[in-house]
């Protein structure tokens, strides 16, 4: 390949580079010996690192399994419980409307009932009404 330079290559090849000093070998030997004395600590660090890695892997796998095992069921929608007005509850507009729908007497009875509950037990009930019942109105006028 290098016909013109074959002789030059041969001449160069005959030149020997300066040998390394014995001191270099000693220094290399010292460095490699230091490496070997440091190395025994490595198995512990490797074991520790391996244990940590295994723990992390186990945690990830467990978490993944839990995610896989969780199957969300159908969402149960609880129907609204009907509002039941018990006797102790405070009156609501709806209760009054229902009573009015039944009869005016029922409304008055309900009003009286709730008024009696809110008043102190020994207080006298005032006979004041915003509207007088029709029979009472007629009676007061002497028409009945």
């Amino acid at each position, binding site marked *: 390949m290098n016909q013109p330079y074959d002789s030059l290559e041969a001449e160069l090849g005959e030149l*020997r580079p300066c*040998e390394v000093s014995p001191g*270099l*070998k000693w*220094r*290399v*030997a010292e*460095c490699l010996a230091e490496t070997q004395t440091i190395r025994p600590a490595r198995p512990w660090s490797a074991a520790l690192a391996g244990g940590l890695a295994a723990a992390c892997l186990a945690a990830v796998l467990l978490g993944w399994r839990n995610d896989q095992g969780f199957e969300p069921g159908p969402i149960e929608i609880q129907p609204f419980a009907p509002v039941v007005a018990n006797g102790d509850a405070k009156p609501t507009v709806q209760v009054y409307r229902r009573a009015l729908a039944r009869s005016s007497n029922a409304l008055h009875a309900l009003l009286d009932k709730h008024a009696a509950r809110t008043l102190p037990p020994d207080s006298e009930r005032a006979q004041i009404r915003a509207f007088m019942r029709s029979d009472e109105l007629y009676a007061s006028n002497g028409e009945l």
Partner: protein
Amino acid sequence: MVGDSDPWKLWLDEHGAALVLLARQWVASHNDAEDVVQEAFVRFWRSRHRVAEPVAYLYACVKHCGLDWQRAGKRRSKREEASARPEAERLFAGPIEQDERRIAVEAALLNLPEKQREVLVLRIWGGLTFSQIAEALAISIDTAASRYRYALARLHEELAEETIP
């Protein structure tokens, strides 16, 4: 402490001189070159099992350490001291009757461009194949062969001029 049976010693015996010659590209003195080789060799020996081509890796380590050394500007005083007495910093060993020719070759070698010189050193004195050179220097095989031819041509030209009386 250093036994002949140590495997690393066989490597250093076989490649040490060429490694120091390669390191001389980036440091001026033989002592500094040996420091570079020491650092590179220890690094190589610790991680040689990880590479497919350990010989190429060894020379690559020397190059990297040499460049690091050059960048860091370490041992500047030693370099200046070495340049003051160049006779102590010869590259090649040889009989005294061939000193004139040796000095001429050394001068021609140092005049080569760095990229050509490193290929020549790896090929002639390191005994690496072009494939190994390509791997060590992270270049293609064609580039390695090309640089080698250019280096020989330039050396041939310079040494031919030297022989003219």
